[in-house]
């Protein structure tokens, strides 16, 4: 995999490439995984993202960033897109885009919110909603590399039906040694789940995260308010701010 050097020269200019849809997988009622074929894809690191650009017949363009959902398979990349009501790009990708239709893609971009398989520190992943996508890329990259670094994922969702990658997470929590997955439900919890629906708080981070003295790397991704809350909790618990990496997503899509 031709990964860019950390924060260094990438050598090649960032250009828009034409991508085509090859597969579409529903994940939840509002999220889909889209598999794109991007000829000449250079490879990427877990946590990186791509910019996707649509051009209307009158020349109007709209571009959005989407996290890569897993390691590349040759020229194929996967994005998991959550439908944003009234969004410009996500409804097109989910409802209109047909197999073979072109869109423009550039990337990979990003060298900060990434996890490299050479890292040895324990990892805490905290996801809110579709913020799980780049974190799942890290979980998949860990497995693909045979890494034994201990991973913990805390995943906050509204209801059990909103869990993206539900089956795979269940399987990986069972089969991938050293991966723990904990869920927090904000609106409705499944039968048998201990506790009442609530927003993720200090007790959840304390129970399911790593203590700061283990010097874990923390990755937090989700809606803006969620990310700020969790990052503040982690720093408050004693994690150095530079070890708490965040990625937020706003309302546009």
């Amino acid at each position, binding site marked *: 995999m031709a990964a860019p050097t950390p*924060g260094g*020269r990438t050598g090649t200019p960032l250009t828009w490439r034409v991508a085509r849809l090859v597969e579409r997988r529903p994940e939840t009622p509002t999220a889909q995984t889209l598999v794109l074929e991007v000829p000449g894809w250079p490879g990427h690191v877990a946590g990186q993202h791509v910019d996707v650009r649509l051009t209307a017949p009158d020349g109007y363009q709209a571009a959005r960033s989407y996290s890569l959902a897993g390691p590349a398979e040759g020229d194929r990349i996967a994005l998991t897109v959550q439908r944003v009501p009234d969004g410009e790009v996500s409804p097109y990708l989910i409802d209109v885009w047909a197999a073979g239709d072109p869109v423009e893609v550039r990337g990979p971009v990003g*060298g900060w919110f990434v996890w490299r398989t050479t890292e040895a520190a324990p990892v805490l992943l905290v996801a809110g909603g579709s913020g799980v996508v780049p974190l799942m890329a890290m979980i998949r990259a860990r497995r693909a590399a045979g890494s034994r670094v201990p991973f913990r994922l805390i995943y906050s969702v509204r209801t059990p039906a909103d869990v993206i990658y539900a089956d795979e997470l269940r399987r990986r929590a069972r089969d991938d040694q050293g991966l723990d997955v904990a869920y927090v439900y904000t609106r409705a919890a499944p039968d048998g789940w201990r506790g009442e629906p609530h927003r993720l708080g200090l007790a959840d981070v304390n129970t399911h995260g790593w203590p700061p003295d283990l010097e874990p790397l923390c990755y937090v991704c989700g809606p803006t308010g969620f990310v700020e809350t969790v990052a503040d909790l982690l720093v408050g618990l004693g994690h150095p701010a530079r070890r708490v990496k965040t990625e937020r997503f*706003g309302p546009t899509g």
Partner: protein
Amino acid sequence: MTEMSYLDGNMLDGPLRELFAVDLSSATGRCESCGMVGPMAGLHVFSHAPGLVGRRPACTEVMLRLVRAPDRAWLDLRGSTFLQVPMPPDQPHPRPL
């Protein structure tokens, strides 16, 4: 400005890669206003303006403005006193050129 109206600093990676030979996503910058040093990825980005405006989360001052037109780009960094960019180790030439 409503509280949730900003985007993530990580989204600047693509637009800045159009201008620079290095990946600025892991660069850190110092805010001229509050003096804090933080990652570019940590900026709050407002995209409603005709362009991208990056503000420091703590003091909300503007550190970066980027406006892209079809045939040019304007980059205004007056709110930043420096950018520190991780680079691969410099390799000195083994002998005089």
